């Protein structure tokens, strides 16, 4: 953002125009008691050189030197330099597509490629041109199911990202929508027996995540048949889409949605992220957001257009399919570049690396007496580990080893205190895994309780 300073003379000129003698007069409407009169607790101004030094130092101290085992919906993957080089080209680097979108054929073509790749990865027929993020995409998918089925109940798996569930609740709070949760079984997957008794003829959709919040793959075909037997739709959320390079796509689902941040978008203090949503062609007109289609111009040449715009907010206003008005074209473009660059073989290789690292780490951790890997469901690059005493202390130990040690699940699931959710991407080296395992071994040999001094590590804000 541009900083536009003004001089005392500028301010005087403005006050003359508004007819005020002093700037304080502008605040007179605020009662004197409510106005803060002390000195603001802010550091003094810095010169340009000092500011640069401040941030360079902060950067040096921060996660760059750290190995991160945090996942839980946000994944640290290597970002090839090509992504930013292409992304920051002036032709792409504008905030919005113009209202006459067809003038930007390059942008539309990139979105079309994004849609194509998302349908291929998710095993669905159509994709939109991205949504705000994974949590809102999941909510939009559920709203879509409510429109399609004209039913009022949604069943959310307890293994769905807790913040995604919160987002859904925020959306439907003042609507006539009934929300039920499907519990998790001992294996870390949803309890299908419970699901069977939960889903009924009033249920619009069952929303699951796979790999789920605990990293375990859900049994999608089985869940799909339970769901479809009652005429409900199955929504599968994917927060780690890299998994789709080695796992069978959830083609039994009616809607697949989630977060594509893994594909070339950095973990940057909570955003921006990029949501996706793919579905069956018959549900095309209930799909929110924008969609780019391929066509031919009057001379028969290939071209791209925004399709179904008649259902969008800028034409249909309050009757639009959805009131979502932000898509994440630039982040979707990053994902497109990333996926094109890696290609099918590269993506698979990368996914296999993630898989191998997580399974190596799990094997090593399992050897430590007192450390338990409680869930048996198959996992991709994330899994849960239970440590013998206060997990916060272990996180401190790991931090002093320059390892950000995963998410303490007690924050979201009271029954899972001292359970850590660990994620292993290609950025975690084998030496780092071994160091982590060693720290866990020492911690387990001499269990500690909270009360020791040191910073606690929390998950990077998804907000």
């Amino acid at each position, binding site marked *: 953002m541009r900083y536009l300073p003004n001089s005392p003379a500028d301010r005087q000129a403005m006050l003359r125009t508004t007819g005020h003698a002093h700037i304080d007069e502008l605040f007179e409407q605020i009662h004197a008691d409510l106005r803060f009169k002390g000195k603001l607790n802010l550091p003094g101004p810095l010169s340009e050189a000092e500011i640069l030094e401040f941030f360079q130092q902060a950067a040096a101290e921060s996660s760059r030197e750290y190995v991160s085992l945090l996942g839980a919906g946000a994944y640290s993957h290597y970002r090839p330099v090509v992504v930013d080089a292409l992304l920051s080209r002036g032709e792409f680097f504008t905030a919005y597509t113009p209202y006459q979108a067809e003038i930007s054929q390059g942008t539309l073509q990139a979105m079309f490629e994004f849609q194509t790749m998302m349908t291929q990865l998710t095993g669905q027929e159509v994709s939109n041109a991205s949504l705000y993020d994974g949590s809102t995409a999941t909510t939009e998918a559920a709203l879509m199911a409510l429109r399609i089925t004209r039913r009022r109940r949604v069943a959310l798996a307890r293994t769905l990202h807790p913040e995604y569930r919160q987002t859904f609740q925020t959306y439907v709070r003042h609507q006539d929508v009934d929300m039920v949760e499907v519990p998790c079984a001992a294996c870390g997957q949803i309890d299908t027996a419970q699901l069977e008794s939960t889903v009924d003829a009033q249920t619009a959709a069952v929303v699951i995540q796979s790999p789920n919040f605990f990293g375990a793959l859900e049994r999608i075909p089985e869940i799909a048949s339970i769901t479809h037997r009652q005429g409900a739709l199955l929504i599968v959320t994917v927060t780690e889409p890299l998994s789709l390079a080695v796992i069978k796509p959830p083609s039994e689902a009616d809607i697949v949605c989630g977060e594509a941040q893994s594909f070339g978008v950095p973990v940057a203090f909570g955003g921006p992220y990029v949501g996706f949503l793919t579905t069956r062609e018959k549900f095309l*007109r209930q799909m929110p957001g924008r969609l780019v289609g391929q066509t031919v111009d009057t001379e028969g040449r290939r071209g791209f257009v925004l399709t179904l715009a008649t259902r969008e907010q800028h*034409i249909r206003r309050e009757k639009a399919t959805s009131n979502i008005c932000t898509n994440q074209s630039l982040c979707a473009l990053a994902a497109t570049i990333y996926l094109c660059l890696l290609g099918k073989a590269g993506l698979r290789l990368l996914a296999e690396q993630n898989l191998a690292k997580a399974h190596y780490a799990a094997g090593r951790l399992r050897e430590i007496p007192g450390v338990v890997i409680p869930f048996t469901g198959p996992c991709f690059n994330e899994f849960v580990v239970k440590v013998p005493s206060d997990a916060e202390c272990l996180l401190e130990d790991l931090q002093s080893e320059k390892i950000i040690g995963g998410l303490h699940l007690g924050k979201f699931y009271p029954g899972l205190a001292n359970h850590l959710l660990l994620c292993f991407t290609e950025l975690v080296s084998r030496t780092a895994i071994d160091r982590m395992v060693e720290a866990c071994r020492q911690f387990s040999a001499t269990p500690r309780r909270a009360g020791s001094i040191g910073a606690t590590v929390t998950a990077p804000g998804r907000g």
Partner: protein
Amino acid sequence: MYPPELLYTKDHEWIRVDESVGTIGITDYAQKELGDVVFVELPKPGDHVTASESLGTVESVKAVSEIYSPVSGEVTAVNKKLQNNPELINSDPHGEAWLVRVQLTHRSEIDKLMTADEYEAYIQQEKAH
């Protein structure tokens, strides 16, 4: 040009009432205003519709418009031809392109609707605006 056996709404739908069953469509004026129709979204047989409330949508290349039901009742039939041939709405809006049949629950609702002559006068007025 507007068939005298039909009744009309201010939202440009028509209804033909035989006994207690109403056949509903959109008017020639409506199809001209919309332009080329590309998709029609209709309720399912068994669904309930309410007078003056939306029973579905018509999508043209220009816009998506609500179809407001002239009467309340239960949908007994839906014109399946429109699924693959929505352009029938442009070619034969008062005939082949009927949308739904409804079993009327409040027959008196049709008393509020316009006759062909009244509707003709109404759209002349609309055009003048």
